[in-house]
């Protein structure tokens, strides 16, 4: 019997050459949770051409009703669009349209999904048909008929009635990703025709016509003027912002993290000017069988994000024990991509939003325990919105980190010692002396 627990897949000690079954049995059928958490369907570390966990997730929803039997879809685009990442810099882009008219905004606006079940979210996404057209990311500079239309609908402030002409009937499939919300059926695009005038958000339009405005300034300005994250991210992905010659298409799953990261960096700069909080604050919230706890500490800005995936959850399907992954940054930030990926940056945005609102500075240790009810990865929006709502809850204040941590751990089934062992900031707080402790000796 081969077990993923006993074999280090990075270094199988000559075992792989002797036993051809190793790859099949250990890596493909039972990938280790450690490997899956580091990959999450993005790097295909197990060697399969498609992530087995995501494929399984797709088959879960493949039984949904056959909604589309035609190659012409007529409906109101939320507005929605998608930029793929495979083949970069030549990627598939296209609009998303459901087969019905009306107020469809909620279908592509994760900010409206608070309190919805995974099944409801899958249904929303399944109803959106995606047309695919291959184009170069640099075509965003000069534009084309399709790119111009996509840029225009990405700035729309209400659903746009459209007709989607496809080369063939859509493939009845839904695809999942750790970073982006699920995407529904798709087919090669023949033509996309919005009917009537598209009403665009004047704030977005202003940024679009400003060919000297940097993309990061544009997105921060729009965010500050109250434009929803999902709208900014959509327009960003289709090359609406930036200096004229630098505009490009950005794959949806990258653009989400790019916007999360960029906005939070701006907010970090801002909160560094504020006074530190004078107590330990513990926040608690739950959503989609995820338990979230935030511990804010009275010190200068530093941040850590740790996730614990119980066995049976999306990225720890085959494990027998919870698997933890996390990363942190000090006052001056980080230079490498954080190990947990998009969730790290999206949580950083939610926590800096809170601190900027409070006009305070603090350290932040954000913890997430994922229970088996979280069967599918639905995208980082889930974490962003959950942390945003967590930080709207009432917090409990404590005088010491120990008290705060003890209270925080009452919400988790994983013991305190495991969180401490996996948290650099908690270990630092416990073990790292401060030079100020030696001033009065």
């Amino acid at each position, binding site marked *: 019997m081969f077990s993923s627990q006993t074999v280090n897949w990075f270094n199988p000690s000559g075992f792989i050459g002797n036993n051809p079954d190793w790859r099949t049995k250990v890596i493909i059928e039972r990938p280790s949770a450690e490997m899956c958490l580091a990959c999450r369907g993005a790097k295909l570390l197990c060697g399969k051409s498609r992530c087995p966990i995501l494929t399984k997730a797709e088959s879960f929803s493949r039984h949904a009703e056959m909604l589309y039997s035609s190659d012409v879809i007529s409906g109101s685009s939320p507005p929605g669009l998608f930029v793929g990442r495979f083949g970069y810099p030549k990627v598939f882009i296209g609009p998303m349209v459901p087969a019905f008219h009306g107020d469809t905004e909620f279908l592509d606006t994760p900010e409206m999904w608070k309190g919805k079940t995974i099944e409801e979210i899958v249904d929303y996404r399944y109803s959106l048909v995606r047309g695919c057209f291959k184009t170069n990311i640099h075509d965003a500079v000069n534009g084309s008929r399709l790119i111009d239309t996509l840029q225009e609908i990405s700035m729309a402030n209400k659903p746009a009635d459209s007709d989607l002409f496809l080369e063939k009937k859509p493939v009845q499939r839904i695809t999942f990703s750790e970073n982006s919300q699920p995407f529904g059926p798709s087919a090669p695009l023949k033509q996309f025709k919005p009917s009537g005038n598209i009403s665009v958000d004047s704030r977005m339009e202003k940024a679009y016509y400003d060919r000297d405005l940097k993309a990061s300034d544009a997105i921060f300005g729009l965010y500050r003027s109250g434009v929803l994250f999902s709208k900014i991210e959509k327009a960003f992905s289709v090359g609406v912002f930036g200096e004229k010659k630098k505009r490009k298409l950005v794959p949806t799953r990258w653009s989400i993290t790019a916007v999360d990261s960029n906005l939070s960096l701006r907010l970090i700069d801002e909160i560094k000017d504020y006074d530190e909080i004078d107590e330990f604050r513990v926040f608690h919230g739950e959503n989609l069988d995820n338990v979230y706890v935030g511990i804010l500490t009275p010190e*200068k800005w530093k941040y850590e994000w740790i996730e614990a995936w119980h066995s049976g959850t999306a990225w720890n399907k085959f494990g027998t024990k919870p698997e933890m992954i996390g990363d942190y940054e000090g*006052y001056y930030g980080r230079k490498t991509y954080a190990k947990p990926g998009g969730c790290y940056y999206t949580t950083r945005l939610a926590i800096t939003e809170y601190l900027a609102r409070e006009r305070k500075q603090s350290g932040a240790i954000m913890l997430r325990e994922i229970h088996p009810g979280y069967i599918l990865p639905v995208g980082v929006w889930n974490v962003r919105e959950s942390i945003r709502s967590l930080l709207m809850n009432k917090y409990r204040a404590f005088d010491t980190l120990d008290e705060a941590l003890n209270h925080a751990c009452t919400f988790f089934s994983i013991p305190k010692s495991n969180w401490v062992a996996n948290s650099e900031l908690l270990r630092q707080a416990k*073990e*790292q002396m401060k*030079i*100020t402790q030696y*001033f009065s*000796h």
Partner: protein
Amino acid sequence: MMPAETTKTSAMTGFVARTQTPSEWRAVTASILTLVEEATFDVTSEGITFRAMDPSHVALVDLFWPSSGFEKFECTKADKFTVRVEDFTKLVRRAESKDSIEISRQATDSLVMKLGSRREFELHLIESNQSNTPLPKLSFNSKFTIIEPAFDRVLNDISVVSSHITIETKKDTITFSGKGDTGKATVTLDRAGQDIPELDVKEESKATYSIEYLLKITKAAGSASDMINFEYSSKMPLRMEFKLGEASKGGRIHFYLAPRVQE
């Protein structure tokens, strides 16, 4: 080498400080940049000093740069100036290796930096919000001098497996070690080797420190100094000394780092 000019001119209201090459300023600004974004320098007739901690209060830099360490130094009245370290560093980096650097302050809100004889920059000063930082009161049981490239190599060796380094001194040896999820690393240097010109152990000592801080400061301050004087005691902060320019001139950067103590 010309003796340093230390003059006091009552007509002057500010200060002038000139170094023959940019290497000292490079080391000073790079060292400060590892800890803080804004820096307030104190200028008196004695020279230039600076002291600050990083935002986590784990490390402290203490600069002492006596007037004798400059090619030319004039100061009529004690003064302070605060700069954004990144902006100041950018100006220093514009100097070529043979350029002298002269900083002076005549106007109240800006600092003039001359690189060589032809290039001049004016840097707007910012408001200081720095409070006075005392020095930790420490006595050291172990002292050693290590050549800079050797220490750099030790840090890089240990950082392969760990983010912390344990330093243990015995009568004739120094052991650097670290352990992490992937394994262990140990480097032993002894008195007989070339890497340790000096080793003085009053009491055997063992303490653990963050490699991240040590790597940054060694890279920054080590550029101006071939040797690092190292002092520490068991489970106590360490002090590293980097000389600025010629050792006889007395300029130095002290770097204090609090230990990591595991129960």
